């Protein structure tokens, strides 16, 4: 196809060369696609600087302007077609290669299930793993309350406004709603579906179920739109307690909190209640326990006060009973709640709560 110096090829010859380059190129690509590992080379050969197409291109200079236009158009069309074909085949080849690789890597996972009994992990010499510090704390709390005669109840983390606020004596625009920064979900009417800001909605589910009396604790994950810092996480865990029965008193609430405190922390740790406010309890209280680090002497953890604020509690507000159709004159009850992560932080003397969500095994291994 080297042009002869004496007589430059005419238009017909050039067009024929284009035609033949196209035909050969198609065939070459098709062959290469069928031969594993050869496609990239064929692609260069057909479309690269030393391809037949490139050689024909060099002939265009010898044509008159009209012929050059005509041959140029034919050449362009041929190149385009070959490029498209190459791209199409490249994908086919890649898929075939992937399938081949996949086939070559095939494992019969059932072999591993019935293989030798030696666990494949044992040779790592790492020993036993760990439950997360928060799980350990939660289990311990559950066990403490179970021993006190409580059931453990759970509920959904995504809730409607009714369960998280309204049934808990917080109608829309209630100022107390500002106590919780709420994360809403893009579902239904705006502002109706949310991530629970506390475990209290589980109380409503239990009360609605209507099986009285109720002696239950409700642990679970909660959400608030708070910037994380050393003492707060936007995703955190709470445990809540609810007792509803005939003749339940505030004295019972204080007694249960004290019984929990001594059995969970040990006999040297006591509790005290102070008036506080929650829309869903009346009277309300916050409860504090003797600082378990210094045992009441005063230290950095308790800011020298000897007491750690643990959570909130109170007598179930009559409006909550009314919302779920229970007669507050016949039944009374109390509720309490506190943060599991916060408790774990205090007990483990953990300086920054964010370590809980890093999942660094050097951290997890300590507990």
């Amino acid at each position, binding site marked *: 196809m080297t042009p002869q110096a004496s007589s430059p090829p005419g238009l017909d010859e050039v067009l024929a060369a284009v035609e033949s380059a196209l035909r050969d190129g198609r065939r070459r690509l098709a062959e290469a696609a069928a031969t594993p590992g050869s496609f990239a080379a064929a692609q260069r050969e057909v479309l690269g600087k030393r391809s037949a197409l490139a050689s024909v291109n060099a002939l265009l200079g010898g044509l008159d302007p009209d012929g050059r236009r005509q041959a140029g158009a034919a050449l362009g069309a041929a190149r385009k077609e070959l490029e498209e074909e190459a791209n199409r085949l490249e994908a086919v080849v890649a898929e075939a290669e992937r399938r081949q690789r996949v086939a070559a890597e095939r494992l019969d996972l059932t072999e591993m*299930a019935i293989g030798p009994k030696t666990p494949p992990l044992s040779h790592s010499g*790492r020993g036993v793993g760990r439950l997360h510090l928060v799980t350990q704390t939660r289990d311990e709390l559950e066990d403490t309350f179970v021993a006190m005669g409580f059931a453990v109840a759970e509920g959904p983390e*995504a809730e409607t406004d009714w369960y998280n606020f309204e049934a808990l004596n917080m109608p829309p625009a209630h100022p107390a709603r500002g106590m919780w920064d709420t994360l809403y*979900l893009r*579902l239904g009417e705006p502002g109706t579906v949310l991530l629970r800001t506390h475990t209290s909605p589980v109380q409503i589910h239990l009360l609605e179920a209507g099986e009285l009396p109720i002696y239950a604790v409700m642990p679970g994950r909660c959400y608030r739109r708070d910037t994380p810092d050393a003492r707060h996480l936007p995703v955190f865990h709470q445990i809540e307690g609810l007792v509803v029965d005939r003749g339940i008193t505030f004295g019972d609430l204080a007694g249960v909190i004290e019984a929990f405190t001594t059995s969970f922390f040990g006999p040297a740790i006591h509790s*005290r209640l102070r008036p506080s406010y929650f829309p869903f309890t009346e009277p309300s209280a916050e409860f504090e326990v003797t600082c378990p680090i210094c045992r009441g002497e005063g230290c950095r953890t308790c800011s020298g006060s000897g007491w750690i604020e643990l959570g909130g509690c109170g007598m179930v507000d009559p409006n909550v009973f009314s919302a779920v159709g229970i007669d507050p004159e016949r039944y009374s009850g109390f509720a309490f709640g506190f943060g599991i992560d916060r408790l774990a932080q205090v007990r483990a003397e953990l300086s920054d709560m964010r370590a809980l969500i890093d999942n*660094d095994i050097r951290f997890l291994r300590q507990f």
Partner: protein
Amino acid sequence: MRAPLSWLRDYAPLDAPPARLAEVLSELGLVVESTEHVGEGLDDVVVARVLDIRAHPAADRIRLVDVDAGDGEALQIVCGAWNFAVGDLVPLAPVGAVLPGGFAIGRRKMRGEVSNGMLCSAPELGLPGPGDGLLVLPPGSAAPGVPFAEAMGLEPDVVFDLDVGPNRPDALCMAGVARDLAAALGEAWSWPAGPPAPPVDPSIGTAPLSVDAPDLCPRFTATVLDGAPTGPSPVWMARRLTLAGMRPIGAVVDVSNYVMLDVGQPNHAYDLDALGGGGLSVRRARPGERLVTLDGVERALGPDDCLICDAGGTPVGVGGVMGGAGAEIDPSTTRVLLEAAWFAPAAIARTGQRLGLHSEARVRFERGVDPELAPRAVERFAGLLASLPGGEALRRGATVDARSPHLPGRPRVALRTSRVNDLLGTALSEDDLPRLLRPLGFRLEDPVGGTFDVEVPSWRLECSREVDLIEEVARMWGYRRIERTVPAGSRRRTGGLTAFQRERRRIRQVLSGAGFYEAWTSTFLAPGDLGQAGLDPLAVEVENPLDRSESVLRTSLLPGLLKALRFNLDRQNEDLALFEVGRVFAPPADEGSLPVESERLGVVVLPFGAADASTAVAAAVRCWVWVADALRLDGASIDAAELPGLHPSRAARLLGPSGTILGEVGEVASEAARAYGIDGRVGWLGLSLDAVFGEARRPRLAADVSRYPASALDLAFVAGDDLPAARLAGAIAGAAGDLLEDLVLFDVYRDERLGAGRRSLAYHVTLRAADRTLDEPELAELRRAMIAAASAEGGELRGEPAG
């Protein structure tokens, strides 16, 4: 709420030690977050006049200052502050002084220059104020050498920083805090006399006032005050405001803030001459009406918002929330129209929330201000203003009081002594209740049949139910005095964990016992996380995420666990094997309902050390075997399948005996692992706890353990790669029946001679009968049966392996 003790003492003696007062406040529910002692330890600090300021020859950031400390001599101090000039009066802590906080001043050389003491900023003296420069005293306020505390009128004081709950709007002022304290301490509480207000001057006249939205604004009072002083407020008032956390600005504004902090009435002082028509009108805003509020922000209002306008109809403020930028008082204002009003709490809450506007007024009005307070606040305002320097000539017009039936009256509540004791577990008598409640302002008549008819004071309107009064009784009696009891209960039930909770714990125990670490990953994912893990990106979105990287609810535990792996790898942690038990959230099938929550187990595991990369997926498979074993789940199967996010030929569905999908196991697709920055192979196990726990389990029944010897035999078969080893094992086990004790695949072997796509599977079979020793003919028969069964599945016997 910051409450200076000296201010509280306007109302009651309160002479107990501050620590005791703090304790009482906390026990009343006005929790003291901190107690600041101010103005103490200033005995050594004196006022000094700046005589000269010179550059330090050897330093750029500090200068040499000569001051006159009272003796007329120039005393050289090295100083790093730049906010003062020659002639200014500044506090000097001379050599030998000890500052609040215990910092002792000595003679020091700084870069070769002697400093004979220290010039102080406000925080260095334990005072509120900026710390980036010296505290500069007002010009002419004292002569050099005068004790600083004397010059500033600084009596030592104590400031309680109180956390006041939303149910205690009455305690957002000094009067209210003092009332609680006095009641708890058994001290008398009374309104202070205060400076007398000038009598009403009829010649001043009244401003025109109309209220067209009495439901939003049930009470509005307007009072003209003429001849208001224009200078700064006196030191005592500026100091009280500062200690209470507000910045002194000028006489009228300071008195306005003072009255709010003192008695609890938010109020607003308008520049009367800037008000069109010289008066005010109150109406609902028109849809889309706009107003620039004091903070300089233009607000769009609507018919639920209460608008204060001048008598010409031009808006001048959002009622009860924030004033407008228009009729603001400036330092030269002498003719003032004073607003003291009462706005409907719910309306204020709505408006404030919608506009995102926080103000001292909003906080008070939305929680509930005393509706009867306005006249007292006006008296106090006028009296204080007249008492300020330059206020002697203040003249006061009559107060126009637009009061509508929407204004709440005092609730009357029936309080049963028996109910108090039933709910609290106390044994209070009929005599106790009046004694406890009257000091707070509740009026109790003699009880009828143990029931009191209680009239609630106008400042405690939120006490509208019996239970609210019971809380007050408990508060005044003292929570700590209520005897702690154990619920007697009617029909106590015993507690316990549910089966689900017990089995979930079991799974956690099995995995941690096997060397896995439990992780806790976030419920939130970034928008691309699921797609990058090869999973369906469809997920529930968070409407108002804190950050875009936390805007999607996870539908799988995989992305979070991959992130946790990556976090550990970045810290050179090795031998990683993590698991998590947590909720995932599927988008609801129909619009408007809740996400579908389910609890899942996720396990990620990397290959160990330099071992074969397939140990990762093998470990994941073993995890499943252990879990199924611990749960006594027999007959589950591992069914090879191409699954999202997993290696196409290294993944399987886990099926229960009845074919229910329980989860999946496999190797994470390499593209997915790489997308999370993990280069190697990752084994994965995902289980639905509900599905697994829902399967029928082997009952906990004891089968006798055989006392006869076991017989072992090894069988090797050649099988195509598409024949799972477990299927062959199942056939063998089926043939062995009850006699099978154990079956292990002990060798997998590939060789060209076996042919491409084929492998040898060698099984070690342990057989044992419950009632006899198996004899040779029986074993031979069993062997034949097992071979036949395997052959029927496509396994060709390969001949006895050696041994």
